[in-house]
Each structure stands twice: as structure tokens, then as C-alpha cells.
């Protein structure tokens, strides 16, 4: 989730774009991909939707504004759907929400400092390096855990407790029982996770990439509850962002409405998907996406170094590297959504082979 809502100091006059059928269809598709990822992972919409909209020719600030405004309503519907499945721990969400805003504030202050000292290219480089370091570490950690699970290695068989286990076992009072997640965790640990989520959101705009894994590994929350709780948190940051961007005149409501056409289908599909796949599969999709996004940022490092005058890039290399970065970025969304839909299709095929049990009620009778 993105908690960072940072607007340019001097708002430039922007023109709303003309809406063509092709653009409308593209926005529907972007919404569908972003919504499916959000519904399944609790995060993952913004990092792909904003650049995708920019590649359609939308000004960056309008793409961000449309995305965050759309996220507000999408998160409400997504959290509602996850809540129906018992996937939202509101107590956890509210605790994390407090620390999240502090994390965003610190990150934004640091980003501003880097921008003032090193300029735009230096700021881009800083953000990319943060992306690469944090996301590579998270993806490697999660991948190793998934592989261990696949090999059937339990916590007891490990050489010793991992760093995550050690942190998880810290029971600094007060210890709170989070009912929905069914875990007892130190308030300080929950606040730390919230702060880290906010810090990453404020730094790179995608806090859920650390928030969801941290909830799973540090707080011991089931994967699907982490996804649902992350969406619940997104309601607040979405509301704040929607308000501020609209106040500055950046929101084109047509773009938001067209995104909804796809994303509200996607978010329901994703949430239903969490019911029929294993937690390890949800984590596998997340690892694949996080690793590809980290690669996408790593590909851009030479460009930023060149902009800073530290290295010289050959003519044409700039475009090639940018293209490579975009392939990794959009590829991550395509891979993620394909895996989700493939597993759901497999579950559907299995379901049609299963004879209905105890379904002796007429079709018009009670279903849920």
C-alpha cells in the first residue's frame, strides 16, 4: 500500500486528456490487472498501474492521482470482500495505521533531503537503490522459506531460529491478542511493522511489499489475513491521497471510473483466489513480482548514474535499458496475474468434477 502522499510544492496547470475508445479499453485492462493483484496479495496495484498509465501518455502526477483516488474505493470494496472471508484483522490494521503515518513522514523527509542535496537524478538513484536492496532481501528471504516448506523442512529442523523467528519471539509488553489473525504479538512489534510499511511507502510508494511479508513472518499472521489487513490499511492512505490530489486539481474522474470497471472485477477475483490456493502459492506470486520489480529498478541504475555524470552510456543504450526495465515491470504483473488465474482455473476444473454435497435445496434457496 502507498501511504505516501507528496504533492509538488508548485502545482502546474494540467490539461485533462481526451478520452478515446482505445484509451478507455486500456484503462479497463490496467484496472483488471491491478485489481487482481490487489485482491490476491493485498498490495501490488500501484506499482504497475501508475507506470502503465504513464506509458499511455498520461502526465505522471495525474496517473498517481487517478490511481490513489481509485485505490480509495477499491480498498473499501476489497477489504469488505476479505472481511466477509474473515481475512481482516481491524485491531491489527488500526495499530499499524498509527505507526504507518510516522514512517511515511520520516521517509518523505529523507526523500526531500536527498532531492535537495543530489537533485532529481540523485533522488531517482536513491529510490532505485532502496527498491533493489529491500525488495531483493525480501524476495530472497521469502523464496528460501517457500523452498524450505516445499522440501518439508519445519521450524524445528532448521539449524537454529532465524532472525525473523528471534524478532517474532520478542514479547516486549504490552502483548496484544489479535483475534482474527489469532496471534499474540508485542504492540511494539506491530508498530515497528507499521512504521517499516510506512517508510517503504513513503520512499518507493509500495509499502505493502514489506508490510505483507513482515506481517506474515514477524507477526506470524496467516498469509490471507495479511492480504486482507493490508487492504484495510489502504483505505486510510487512499482516502488521504484522494482528498489531497483532488484539492490540488489533479484528479480526472473519468480515468478513475474506467479503472474501476476492471479493478472491481479483479479485486473480487483475487479475493476469491485467496480461498482456493495455498498460502505458499500466494507468497510465490509475491516473490515473483517483488523480484521482477527489483530487477526492473536494477536495470535503471546505469541510466541514473549516467544522468549524474558518473558513467557514460552509449547513444541508444538509454532507451534499451529503459525498455528492459519496463519489460521486467510489466512482465511481473503479467506473470502474477497469469499464475493467479491459472490456479483459479485449476481449482474450477477440480470443482466441476466434484459432485455437489448436500445441495438438495432449490437454486432459489439460501446459498451463503
Amino acid at each position, binding site marked *: 500500500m502507498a501511504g505516501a502522499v507528496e504533492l509538488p510544492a508548485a502545482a502546474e496547470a494540467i490539461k485533462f486528456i481526451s478520452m478515446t475508445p482505445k484509451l478507455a479499453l486500456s484503462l479497463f485492462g490496467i484496472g483488471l490487472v491491478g485489481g487482481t493483484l490487489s485482491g490476491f496479495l493485498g498490495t501490488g496495484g500501484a506499482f504497475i498501474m501508475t507506470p502503465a498509465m504513464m506509458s499511455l501518455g498520461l502526465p505522471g502526477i495525474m496517473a498517481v492521482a487517478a490511481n490513489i483516488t481509485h485505490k480509495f474505493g477499491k480498498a473499501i470494496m476489497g477489504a469488505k470482500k476479505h472481511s466477509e472471508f474473515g481475512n481482516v484483522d481491524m485491531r491489527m490494521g488500526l495499530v499499524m495505521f498509527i505507526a504507518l503515518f510516522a514512517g511515511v513522514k520520516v521517509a518523505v523527509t529523507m526523500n526531500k533531503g536527498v532531492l535537495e542535496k543530489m537533485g532529481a537524478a540523485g533522488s531517482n538513484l536513491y529510490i532505485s537503490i532502496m527498491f533493489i536492496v529491500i525488495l531483493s532481501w525480501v524476495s530472497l528471504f521469502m523464496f528460501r522459506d517457500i523452498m524450505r516448506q516445499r522440501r518439508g523442512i519445519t521450524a524445528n529442523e532448521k539449524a537454529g531460529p532465524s532472525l525473523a523467528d528471534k524478532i517474532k519471539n520478542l514479547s516486549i509488553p504490552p502483548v496484544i491478542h489479535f483475534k482474527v489473525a489469532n496471534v499474540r504479538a508485542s504492540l511494539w512489534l506491530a508498530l515497528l511493522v507499521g512504521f517499516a510499511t510506512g517508510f517503504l511507502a513513503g520512499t518507493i510508494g509500495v509499502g505493502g511489499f514489506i508490510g505483507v511479508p513482515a506481517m506474515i513472518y514477524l507477526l506470524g499472521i*496467516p498469509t490471507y489475513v495479511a492480504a486482507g489487513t493490508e487492504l484495510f490499511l489502504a483505505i486510510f492512505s487512499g482516502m488521504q491521497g484522494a482528498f489531497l490530489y*483532488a484539492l490540488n486539481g489533479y484528479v*480526472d*474522474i*473519468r480515468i478513475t471510473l474506467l479503472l474501476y470497471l476492471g479493478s472491481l472485477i479483479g479485486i473480487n477475483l483475487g479475493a476469491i483466489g485467496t480461498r482456493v490456493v495455498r498460502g505458499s502459492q500466494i507468497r510465490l506470486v509475491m516473490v515473483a513480482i517483488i523480484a521482477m520489480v527489483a530487477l526492473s529498478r536494477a536495470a535503471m541504475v546505469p541510466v541514473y548514474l549516467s544522468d549524474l555524470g558518473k558513467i557514460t552510456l552509449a547513444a541508444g543504450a538509454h532507451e534499451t535499458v529503459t525498455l528492459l526495465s519496463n519489460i521486467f515491470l510489466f512482465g511481473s504483473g503479467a506473470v502474477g496475474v497469469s499464475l493467479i488465474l491459472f490456479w483459479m482455473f485449476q481449482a*474450477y476444473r477440480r470443482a466441476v468434477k466434484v459432485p455437489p454435497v448436500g445441495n438438495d435445496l432449490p437454486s432459489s434457496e439460501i*446459498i*451463503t
Partner: protein
Amino acid sequence: MSAKDLETKKAAAVKALLGLIGAMLLYFLVFANTDMINSLLQSKSYRAPLTSMTIVLAASFLYGMAVAKILRHTLETKLKSQQLREE
């Protein structure tokens, strides 16, 4: 399962239909009055967030409810036998 969670397929279909009609009406109103709404959204006053957030809430509620009801009584019901909770 509480009584308020119980909903017949017919009731869900009616709600979904009403949601879709409401959403279509809202989309029509917004796209038919784009110029007026855009000038309001660029006014940089409190009317801008009020307008955009009201539209967003209405659209997500109407369309979101319709989609959720349709998927709940189709795909979700179909996949009920495949539900997992291994953690």
C-alpha cells in the same frame, strides 16, 4: 452463519441488477457532463475532493456491489468445494 448473511440467489440478482443500473446511470451522468465536472475538479477548492470522493464512493459501491454479488453466486459458489485454510 448469521441470519443477516443469508441471501437468496434471487435477492442477490435483484441487488446486482439495481447496482448495475445505478452504476450505468452514474457513468452516463459523469461522461455526459465531463466539462462541467472537470471544471469543478480543477477549482482547487473543497468542492473538488467532495465531488470526486462522492462519485468514487457511489461508483465503487454500486458497481462493486453488483460485481461482488454476481461473482459470489457464480464463481465463488462453484469453487466452494475447493476452499483451503491450511495455515
